[in-house]
């Protein structure tokens, strides 16, 4: 007899297996070598939107100053988004200390990151510009490896760097370190099919005239980096990715902060999938329409359905056991004293065990292969066993909880509570 749990498990397994095999085919497909053109050095602008970033803004600006790029061909535009801390004063002091660099400070009342980006974009002089969150730090070679990618193809509108968690200290940070590496590997695969749907805040580089042409950053959405990427895709521009430029960013240090961050990200992803629903399963948008757009929210739906079914099944078993133990007055002694192990291998749930084993094997393969591609060791920064255990066995439940919360937000029509 096939139960509801079986149906959900098998359907989920089929979808996950299909997606895993598809991405493996993408991974091992031969790719044409792109010739790198001689590198020109166009004028380049960086916009740094900052809201209460007094702790990290100086380091962020320093990493921009350290970029291996001619200073006369570069400008830094800091948009102070109504900070109430010392951000403004620190930036002013930094400008005084670097008179030879072109650093502009714009002050606006608090309107959010997208507004700050548009404000900065209005005075950008460069053909290309980047956005750098004020809690991120860019590697000095970034522009040398990112800008040539624009020269290859006029249709490339954005290039994204490799993002890593900066010096993970706790288990939670290390878990996110793993997650970022796997996400980057996934982005690497998506980029092969021009399927990137986010141009992350930390140092994504854009072609300025394209962003102006499509109307700048959307100030209504809570994930402007995702919205702009989908809009670029809608207009058939390319988004590329490179592992050679590295940006390090701080990750949330508490589960609560992480939960809030993920709710914002995934809710933004959900909202924008609904907003651009005409792209979903639309052949006109190629692989982006056929596989990327549907899977943005599909992962959430799978998480909710699978989580709810497993919880229902687990809850039913636990409640049943509790009722039983209560009915025998919790007489565990009799049960233990009369316990006779009766092992019959044929009663084992082989199908479920097989599904669990293959999904674990796929997870391990992705974990190991992504580290190999990104040239990082799993054991870096210590806490390996505990972090791996948390990432592989517990983190999924956390993300499921995030999706369940978003499910409630969607059903109840609750608005976001972030600025």
């Amino acid at each position, binding site marked *: 007899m096939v139960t509801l749990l079986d149906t959900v498990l098998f359907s989920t397994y089929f979808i996950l297996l299909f997606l895993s095999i598809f991405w493996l085919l993408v991974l091992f497909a031969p790719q044409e070598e792109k010739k790198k053109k001689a590198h020109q050095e166009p004028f380049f602008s960086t916009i740094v939107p900052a809201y209460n970033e007094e702790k990290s803004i100086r380091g962020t600006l320093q990493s921009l100053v350290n970029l291996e790029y001619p200073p006369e061909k570069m400008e830094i535009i800091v948009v102070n988004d109504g900070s109430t801390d010392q951000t403004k004063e620190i930036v002013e002091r930094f400008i005084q200390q670097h008179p030879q660099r072109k650093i502009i400070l714009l002050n606006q009342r608090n309107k959010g990151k997208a507004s700050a980006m548009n404000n900065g974009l209005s005075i950008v002089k460069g053909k290309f510009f980047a956005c750098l969150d004020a809690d991120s730090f860019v590697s000095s070679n970034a522009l040398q490896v990112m800008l040539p990618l624009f020269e290859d193809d006029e249709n490339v509108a954005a290039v994204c760097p490799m993002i890593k968690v900066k010096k993970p200290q706790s288990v939670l940070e290390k878990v996110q370190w793993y997650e970022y590496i796997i996400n980057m590997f996934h982005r690497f695969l998506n980029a092969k099919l021009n399927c990137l749907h986010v141009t992350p805040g930390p140092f994504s580089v854009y072609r300025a005239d394209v962003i102006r042409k499509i109307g700048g950053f959307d100030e209504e959405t809570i994930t402007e980096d995702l919205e702009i990427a989908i809009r670029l895709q809608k207009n058939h521009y390319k988004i590329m990715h490179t592992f050679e430029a590295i940006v390090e960013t701080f990750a949330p240090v508490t589960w609560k902060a992480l939960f809030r961050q993920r709710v914002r990200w995934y809710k933004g992803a959900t909202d924008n999938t609904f907003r651009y629903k005409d792209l979903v399963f639309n052949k006109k948008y*190629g692989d982006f329409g056929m596989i990327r757009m549907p899977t943005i929210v599909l992962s959430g739906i799978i998480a909710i359905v699978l989580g709810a079914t497993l919880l229902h099944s687990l809850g039913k078993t636990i409640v049943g056991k509790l009722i039983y133990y209560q*009915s025998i007055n919790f007489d565990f002694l009799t049960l233990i004293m009369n316990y006779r192990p009766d092992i*019959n291998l044929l009663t084992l749930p082989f199908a479920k065990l097989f599904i669990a084993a293959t999904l674990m094997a796929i997870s391990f393969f992705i974990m190991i292969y992504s580290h190999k591609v990104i040239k990082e060791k799993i054991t870096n920064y210590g806490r390996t066993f505990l972090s791996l255990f948390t990432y592989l066995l517990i983190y999924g439940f956390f993300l499921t909880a995030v999706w369940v919360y978003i499910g409630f937000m969607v059903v109840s029509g609750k608005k976001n509570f972030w600025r």
Partner: protein
Amino acid sequence: MSSERKLSLKKYLLAFFLTLLVFSGGIVVGITLENARLSSAEQITLQEKVSLRSLQLQHNYIDSGITDCKTLNTILENNINELGKKVSIIIDYEKKAIFSEEEFNLQLQDYFLTEIQFYLLAQEIEQKCPQNSVKILYFYDENRDDTQGDILAYLKKRFGNRLLIFSLNSQFPQEPMINIFLTYYKITQYPAVVIEEEVYQGHRTTEQLMDDICKEFIKMGKNIPTDCVSSQKN
């Protein structure tokens, strides 16, 4: 700006084909496993039938003194203990069955019949030998969540071989013999237990069942289990 978007149709088709291939492999393994379970169920039923026939033959020789009551009771108790364990295995197989549900149902029907035959034989043996154990017929409804079966299993652990439990699925449509029992004992509510011809309908708590069982042991008059002695004192 280009409007030509690439669609990796070949990769989708190949991925779908490979997924189907892995699934087909899984289905083949599933069928093989189910066949192994079916053979195991057949083996179990056959073993019980052989034990039943052996016990029936031994029962015929009580009067002549070739077999004695003590040996016969021990064999009966051991067989019924095994019955209880094995019926749960077949039920488990039947629940997991996808391709051969019909065959498993037949096995289960065969098993319930053997169980009923054991019950009737136990009644016959009682007429010739002094009663040493309490027999319980337990009718459950497989569509309802109930802890009655678990409570009986717990009591079985407490009383050991001196409690003989015969569990029958009241909703098993294929077997008229179960319906005959239900009609005979006028059972309309589930779960139901028949303890030595005394019918109790609806859920019984551990304490109620303990009392019911102990009442029967006390009726027997000798070798009252210590659990019953202590509950009587309380």
